[in-house]
């Protein structure tokens, strides 16, 4: 049983490692800023899953996992949501002002609207 639990924990840990790579790739390479925000969330999910593997391996005293990393992940999910909301608000403002949702320097931005 313990061997099986161990395998399952490392499997999710490896999945977390893969998600970190995918999210990071999305953040550095995608031209669309909204997609980069989603990539940021995938990166965060990957880091939390690695933490989840740590928590699962620390199972003891009749608990399914170590409660300290679990509590840290709950805090992390809420903070990641707050950061996402702020990023989305910035992006919406950027789109209202420039009519573009990317930071591409080669395309000239349309003149800012007067309602700012």
């Amino acid at each position, binding site marked *: 049983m313990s061997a099986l639990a161990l395998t*399952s924990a490392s499997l999710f840990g490896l999945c977390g490692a893969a*998600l970190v790579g*995918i999210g990071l790739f999305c953040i550095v390479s995608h031209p669309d800023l909204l997609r980069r925000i989603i990539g940021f969330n995938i990166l965060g999910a990957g880091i939390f899953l690695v933490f989840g593997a740590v928590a699962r391996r620390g199972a003891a005293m009749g608990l399914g996992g170590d409660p300290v990393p679990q509590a840290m992940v709950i805090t992390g999910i809420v903070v990641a949501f707050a950061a996402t909301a702020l990023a989305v608000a*910035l992006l919406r403002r950027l789109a209202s002002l420039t009519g573009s949702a990317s930071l591409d320097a080669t395309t000239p931005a349309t003149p800012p609207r007067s309602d700012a």
Partner: protein
Amino acid sequence: MSLVFDIALVAGLIALALHVVVTRDSRGAILAFIAFGLLLGIGWARLASVDVALTEAAIGGGLTGMLLLRAHAHLAREIPPEARARAEPRRWLAPAIACGLVTLALGAVVLAFPRPAPSLAHQAVASLETTGLGNPVTAVLLAYRAIDTLLEKIVLILALVGVWSLSRDGAWGGASQLRPAIIPEPLVFLARVLPPFGVLIAVYQVWVGADLPGGTFQAGTILAAMALLVMLAGLRPAPPTQARALRVMLAGGPALFVLVGFLGVAAAQGFLSYPEAIAKPLIVGIEAALTLSIAGTLALLVAGPPDKAPAS
């Protein structure tokens, strides 16, 4: 057998994440991300972290998905079509190799975790009696590491201040416009039927969170979802952000938390320590006030910066 299920789950998660990165369709990417959040919730349940599973499914899938869908609709209105349809070749090989290396390094770390695994479960369970709680995760959040939770509440409030400050000057202090132009009938029906159940489930989650999986974050998210449902269906307008009652509700949870923290200096061992005899009533009281603050903050974060001028 369960390992086969886990492998399928992990394959699904990675496939959805890849789909988010490669697809051209931004709306499809958001929907894939919502599915990803729900699958990840099942993954957390498989890791025996039911508290995290509830939080991930509610916030990671639900609220973030709604936030992104609203942002997508806003961008579709604001950005002219000719500015969108650009498919330039972009450099992807170097970033892909670098990110692959990060994944490999992290994977090596995961496989090289120390054995036997370090764990704080013994300490967490050993001190559980002094808090009067039965759920060790709640004990970590509100007793052992209460300072983390307090600071997190303050981060939430700061994020909300940041979002509000992105409103136009004229709309400062006004309300967000959540009501869509056309409201589908089933949405109105659901917005009338679901909130009583949602409120009941949220109260249950706060109460049961002391001893079983559940707690303030999960309950706050459910309440926020109910408030958003009512506002989206146009049954109630979003509250103006300058309303005093709203601001008292938002600041009330963290304020009570800080107050109890300083009480600990006088009546117990130090900041944020509870007198043992009344530890549980104090913790449940803080949880109740925090739930309302979290619900309000999360709902307003999704609603976004105010865009209607205040009525004054």
